[in-house]
Structures are given as C-alpha cells and as structure tokens.
C-alpha cells in the first residue's frame, strides 16, 4: 500500500468493466474539452484586438452547424448512458446461489455474520471467485457499505434490508469505508475486506471455531422469543406455519401477493400489522425494540433454513 496510487486496484472483473466505461467517458470528455480549449486559444490569439486577421464574415456560421454538433455530442453521451445502465442492471440481478452474509452497520462499526455463525467487526473475509450476497441492515442512521476496489457502494437505510452482491476475483486486502456521513467517527467506521482463495477461506472458517451455524442460533432465538409458542404445530394461537414458506409467494389479507423474502420476514417481525397473511387475524404483537438487528439476521436465517430445500443450495 506504499507509494501514491493513481488508479484504484481492480479486485473484480466488474471493476474492470466500470474502469473501461470510465476510460471511454474520460477519452470523449478530453476530446470535447480539447476542442473547446483549442478553439478558445485559437480565437484569442488570431482575433486579438491588435491583430490584422481578416474579419470579413465570410465564414458565416449557420445555426444548422450548431444543432448538428449538439446532436452528435448528445447521441454519443446517451450511448454511454445506455452502456452504463446495462452495467448497472447487472448490480441489481443477484445470482441465486450466492453465499449470503448478513452485515449490520451501527454507529461507527460494521459487524458481519457468516452463515456458519462466525462474526467479525470491521472485517470481512470472503472466498475469491464465488458470488457473495450481502444483506445489509443499519441499527441507527444511514451508513453506506463502500469497497472502492470492487467499485460498489450501497447506502444502508435503517428500517429495511438492502441487498448487494459482488464476485471478488483477485485475492488481497482492500479498504472498506462508510461513505454516508453518520456522525463523529464516520471516518473511522471502516476496515478491510480480505479476499482469500477458497481453500484458505475454509481454513479460516474452521479457525473461527465452529459454534452453531446462524440457522441453529436462530432456532434457539425462535424459542426464546416465544415465536414457537404460536408458529409451531399445536400452538396456542392460530398462526401460519413457517415451514416451506421462505422464498414462495404469500397471499395477504388485502388481496395482494408478496414473496416471503428476508425483507418480508423482517418486516413481519417488527411491524406485523403491516402485511397480515390471508386468513389470519392481526394479533401478533410487534417485536420492534426487543429484537436486535443481529438476532433478526439469525431468525431470518433460521426461517430460510426451514424453507423449501433449494436444489444444490450449498448452504
């Protein structure tokens, strides 16, 4: 990390594509800027007050030339915009079998929880060459998970899950920053993302100690918070059974249908009256303020683990 870098490191193929787009935009902008500066300098010297240049108005500049020039520059830049939008859509289509890591941002630190139960502060160890899907939550204000080497950033808005995915290809240690102003130690809320080849990653997981997986911790919480009291068969209150629900469509009492994803599970825990399942009374009490973001991540992991078993889900 010594010396003064001019260009950021490319830790993933996506980063390379963004740099390629940035390079072409830079080239076209330098050409346009060059044209403007050249014309300014040319006219400034040729037609300065004391010069004897011919000024007979022979080269009349019609507005057609102006419209043509503007249209060309607009088309070029809109072409770049469409190319950019295509790259951007890629960010919004998370592959299905990505390794899912829950990241919670709270004032001035990041806490990551791996599916195997390992947790780390201001650090994130990920295997190289594999799709990683981060489920981000904030416990207080808006933060922003930013890894310059991967060219990705996602604001984490408190009150809902934000998802983000990437595939780091080059092993190494890259900066992690918080990019949205969040208070006094906003500058210290960062750390390192360590990309390791899969073998080293497996060793690192074992070194962290194999406590219970996230799903198992979620199961213990499922009982401790009393969810099993209603949601298990033979419960005291008529409540929807949660087996096989995760990821499939759920009809709601107001007639609409929603996919039971991590956001829906989280909202149902914190704001149960928001979207009641069809055929059930809105009697579930709100757990807002009692369940912390870390426990929420475990409960969601548990409900996902009892969801329909995905073909080849390498969980």
């Amino acid at each position, binding site marked *: 990390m010594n010396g003064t870098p001019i260009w950021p490191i490319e830790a993933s193929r996506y980063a390379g594509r963004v740099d390629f787009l940035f390079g072409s935009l830079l080239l076209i902008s330098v050409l346009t800027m060059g044209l403007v500066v050249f014309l300014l300098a040319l006219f400034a010297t040729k037609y300065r007050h004391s010069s004897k240049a011919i000024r007979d108005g022979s080269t009349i500049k019609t507005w057609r030339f102006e419209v043509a020039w503007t249209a060309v520059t607009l088309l070029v830049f809109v072409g770049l915009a469409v190319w950019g939008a295509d790259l951007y859509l890629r960010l919004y289509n998370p592959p299905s079998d990505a390794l899912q890591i829950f990241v919670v941002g709270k004032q001035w630190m990041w806490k990551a929880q791996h599916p195997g139960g390992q947790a780390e502060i201001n650090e994130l160890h990920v295997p190289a060459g594999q799709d990683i899907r981060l489920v981000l939550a904030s416990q207080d204000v808006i933060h922003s998970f930013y890894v310059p080497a991967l060219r990705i950033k996602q604001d984490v808005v408190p009150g809902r899950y934000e998802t983000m995915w990437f595939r780091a290809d080059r092993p190494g240690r890259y900066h992690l920053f918080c990019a949205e102003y969040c208070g006094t130690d906003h500058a210290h809320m960062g750390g390192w993302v360590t990309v390791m080849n899969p073998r080293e990653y497996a060793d690192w997981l074992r070194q962290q100690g194999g406590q219970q997986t996230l799903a198992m911790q979620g199961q213990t919480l499922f009982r401790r918070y009393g969810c099993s009291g209603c949601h298990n068969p033979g419960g005291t209150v008529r409540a929807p059974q949660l087996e096989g629900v995760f990821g499939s469509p759920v009809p709601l009492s107001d007639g609409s249908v929603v996919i039971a994803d991590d956001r829906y599970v989280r909202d149902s825990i914190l*704001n149960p*009256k*928001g979207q009641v399942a069809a055929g059930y009374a809105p009697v579930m009490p709100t757990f807002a303020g009692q369940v912390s973001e870390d426990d929420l991540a475990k409960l969601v992991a548990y409900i996902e683990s009892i969801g329909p078993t995905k073909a080849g889900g390498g969980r």
Partner: protein
Amino acid sequence: MTDDVLTFQYATSDQQREAVTLGMWAFLATEVLFFGALIAAYFNYRIWFGAEFIAAAHMTKVAFGTVNTAVLLTSSACMAMAVNTYQAGRTRAPVLWLTGTALLGLAFIAIKSVEYYLEYQEHLVPAIDFDVGRYGGVAEIFFLFYFCATGLHALHLLIGISLVTWLAIRIGRGRIDRNGSTTRIIGLYWHFVDIVWIFLFPLIYLAGRSG
C-alpha cells in the same frame, strides 16, 4: 397593501394594477408549492403504506370535514360578492359581505377546534399522547401529516380573517382607493386558502370511507 396612488416607478395605473396582480399570482404559486410539499409527502406515503395509511384516515371525522368545507365554500362566495359589489361602486354592501366572510371563517376555526379537542380525547394527537400501541406507527405518521396540514391551513385562514376585517373597517371609513387592487388582492388570497382546503378535504377525510 399600497394605496394605489401612482408610485413613481409606474408610468400608468393600468401598468401598476397588472404588476400587483402578477405579483399576487406569483406569490400564490409559491404558496401552492409550500402546501404542495406536504401533499406530495402524503401521496408518496399513501402509495408506499397503502392499506395501513387508509385505515388511519378512517379515524378522521368526515361529518366535521364536510360541514367545514361547506362553510369555507360559502365564505368564498361571500368574498366574491364583496369584491363585485365593491367594484360596482357600493359601500354598505361590501362591508356586510366582508363581515359575513369573516364570520364564516371564524365558524370554520370554531368547528376545527372542536374537532381537534375530540381527537385529543381519543389520544390521536402525535407527540402529546398518541396511543401508538392501539393505532400503530403509520397512523401516527398520518395524524402528524393531518395536524401539520390543517394547522398550517388554519394559520393561513386566521391571517385571511384579520385581513378581511381590516379591509371591512377601511372600506367602511372610505379609506380604500376605489379603482385600486387592494380588495381584489385580499379576495385572491381568501379564495386560495379555500382551494387548499378543497384539496385537503378528500385526501384527509374521504380516504378509505368505503371500507
């Protein structure tokens, strides 16, 4: 409002009257956007929350709202009559119509305060003692919007009432220049406050009535 003796920067009195009218309409455009920001927030939350937001709107008192709208529309009609009769050269008639407008405005404020008091008893006033457990967080947001919008509207109405009363007194004493634009300007302001209520009424009271 300037008494319309010709101030030095205007060449003719028509030029001055048009300038004052344009100035007033530009000011009303800023007021439309001032209230509009609140209404835009309402719309977006209504799209985003959907059913829960409408359920909260169910708890408003539609009877009070309808009566209040009728009162305000009538006061607008009185104001229009006042402006017409004044421009027709009469003096007693506009004063009577203006007092009618002011009284109807006060009636609106009275009905509104009764409604606020009832809502206070039902613990619907956010930040004081809103019963979040019973109604839920989204209902508190709806009522926060309700009190901000109707409170701001009531404040504008109070300003309108004082302007109308001041105008009625001045016309009674014959101190208003006959072909000036003071009366017309106050009329425009009053009608604008009425239009704000015309839009607030369906958004607040009629949402989710049909169950």
